[in-house]
């Protein structure tokens, strides 16, 4: 036993101590820090998005220069609002994790999946982007109707909008979801299982692009029902953490996202740029072509203007029936332990549907 051993022990300790400062810098370097302060340098905010028709819009916004996805570089609208938006295009599950772990300031997420993270991170829904009107469907092979489906297991992602839509539609048809077992499988895997003719998988509940793909690539498949029976119940939206929104530049960040979304929607409405924009969105959504995308936007109906979005958020149906039903489903399926409080323009709610940014966008015209 000599001094050298102790040197080794010290080095060992120092190596761990050395980890601390470098770890500490991580939140800042990921862009959620408050580094902006009062200098002219714009504050940095992160938006996590995954490939979905009304969210791939942000990928397109980066391509045409409205936003710049990289930190330190500004697109046209970022300059206007003096905010630096970092776009993270990742998997949907990763989006949820990034948002829940405060690694992302804002996230593209469905109304249902918002409730989980919101119990730990108060959330503000600033922008409903689209609703599923057929984009989620139950497809079967060798089963022709709901009577035949009884007792047969449907595969799809558990505790997701798939299972929500599956049970909601059955209830709406006056059937008991207990008679229709639902078992977990990744939507992509479920679609390929049905397409390859796996005898264990006769029925699946998936979302687009898997709905379209499966119906096309498995000639024996039949759509039993889809989310057009529950329009405006599955809402795709952009949600910002209340903490992030309160940071300096947070409001500019939210406004910039809202304006970006409607700017792309205008390009989709303008006959001159419509097809081109749709193709660009398709390139950011499972590499779908123009014809497919035309069908996709039928099934995933965009809220094309702030007025349409406000109409949804002010509707009694959505406020007093849909959201409570969604919360009920989340508790029943143990997605959340306790229902988060849901409010409309009420700052104290854990999930707050804030219409101020939409209203500002209407008056801005």
């Amino acid at each position: 036993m000599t001094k050298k051993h102790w040197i080794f022990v010290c080095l060992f300790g120092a190596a761990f101590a050395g980890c601390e400062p470098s770890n500490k810098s991580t939140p800042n370097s990921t862009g959620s820090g408050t580094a902006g302060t009062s200098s002219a340098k714009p504050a940095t905010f992160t938006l996590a998005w995954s490939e979905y028709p009304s969210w791939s819009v942000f990928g397109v916004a980066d391509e045409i220069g409205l936003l710049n996805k990289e930190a330190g570089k500004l697109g046209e609208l970022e300059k206007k609002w003096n905010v630096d938006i970092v776009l993270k295009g990742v998997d949907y599950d990763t989006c949820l994790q990034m948002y829940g772990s405060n690694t992302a300031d804002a996230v593209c997420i469905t109304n249902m999946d918002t409730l989980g993270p919101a119990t730990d991170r108060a959330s503000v829904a600033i922008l409903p982007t689209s609703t599923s009107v057929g984009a989620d469907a139950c497809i079967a092979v060798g089963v022709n109707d709901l009577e035949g489906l009884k007792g047969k297991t449907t595969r799809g992602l558990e505790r997701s909008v798939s299972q929500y839509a599956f049970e909601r539609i059955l209830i709406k048809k006056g059937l008991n979801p207990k008679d229709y077992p639902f078992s977990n499988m990744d939507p992509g895997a479920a679609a390929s299982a049905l397409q390859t003719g796996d005898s264990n998988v006769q029925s699946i509940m998936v979302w687009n692009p898997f709905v379209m793909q499966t119906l096309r690539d498995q000639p024996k498949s039949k759509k039993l029902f889809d989310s057009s029976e529950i329009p405006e119940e599955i809402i795709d939206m952009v949600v910002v953490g209340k903490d992030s929104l309160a940071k300096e530049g947070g409001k500019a960040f939210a406004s910039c996202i809202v304006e970006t979304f409607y700017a792309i929607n205008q390009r989709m409405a303008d006959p001159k740029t419509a097809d081109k924009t749709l193709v660009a969105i398709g390139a950011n959504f499972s590499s779908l072509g123009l014809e497919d995308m035309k069908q996709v936007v039928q099934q995933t109906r965009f809220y094309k203007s702030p007025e349409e979005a406000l109409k949804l958020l002010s509707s009694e149906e959505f406020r007093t029936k849909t959201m409570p039903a969604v919360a009920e489903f989340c508790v029943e399926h143990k997605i959340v332990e306790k229902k988060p409080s849901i409010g409309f323009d009420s700052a104290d709610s854990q999930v707050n549907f804030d219409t101020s940014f939409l209203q500002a966008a209407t008056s801005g015209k």
Partner: protein
Amino acid sequence: MIRRPIPRWLVVLLGILGVFSLLAVYGGLSYRQSLVNEKQKVIPGLQAFGDGVTRMTAPQGSEETPKPSMLVTDLRATYWRLFLGTGLGVVLSVVVGIAMGAYRWIAAPLAPIISFLAKIPPTAMLPIYFVLVGSDQTMFTTMVALGIFFTMAQSVYQSIVNDVKDEAIDKAYTLGASDPEIVYEVIWKQVLPPILDNIRLQIGPAMIFLLAAEMLVGAEGMGYRIRMESRVLNMSIVYIYLCILGFTGLIGDWCLLWLRKKLCPWYDR
């Protein structure tokens, strides 16, 4: 000085220090994340782990039809799949590997195919498995078995080629041994230790293949639970599951080392 021996007590002390440092780093990270969001579940503290344990050990199902807890269901599913898959893979690869090592006419057609397929991760061929074996229990077993089969058959074959000398076989023939006797007495006894070492090396990949498959198609099992719970950021449950997996690997490793010492005491000499 490089490789100078250190006393036993220092080895133990440093080992314990390592574990404590790991815990300390975790505690620090957990605290730091709590400053970002006091209700965070990403790097949970002790309290949250307690809740996680309560949740995963609570019995499921209704009163009339009680079901075992999450943990029991998942462990049962995963270990059974892992056991069946690894067992099948090991047996198959040992048989094929030895056959290849013993007979050139078996090795000639198989060696190139096996070394090609050994490089392909089985999880990347999910649709092929659906076609071949469906998506239930058989698929998990097949995926684990084939996942380790190719790599292991190749290394069993290689170790026979490298370790079993022609002279040994010639001597055995001279002494009047039959083919089966040579396979058992000469080849098998020499390659048993490397086989056991190989199984140890395959525990990791086997678990990776199984978990990846469970994350995609499982309706129960550890991979399924890890995906479901990390989706809603119940990391307390996820980390406990990861610890269980870690210990599974560790214990498997120790068992095989012990087995090798028992079965082939000459090998370490």
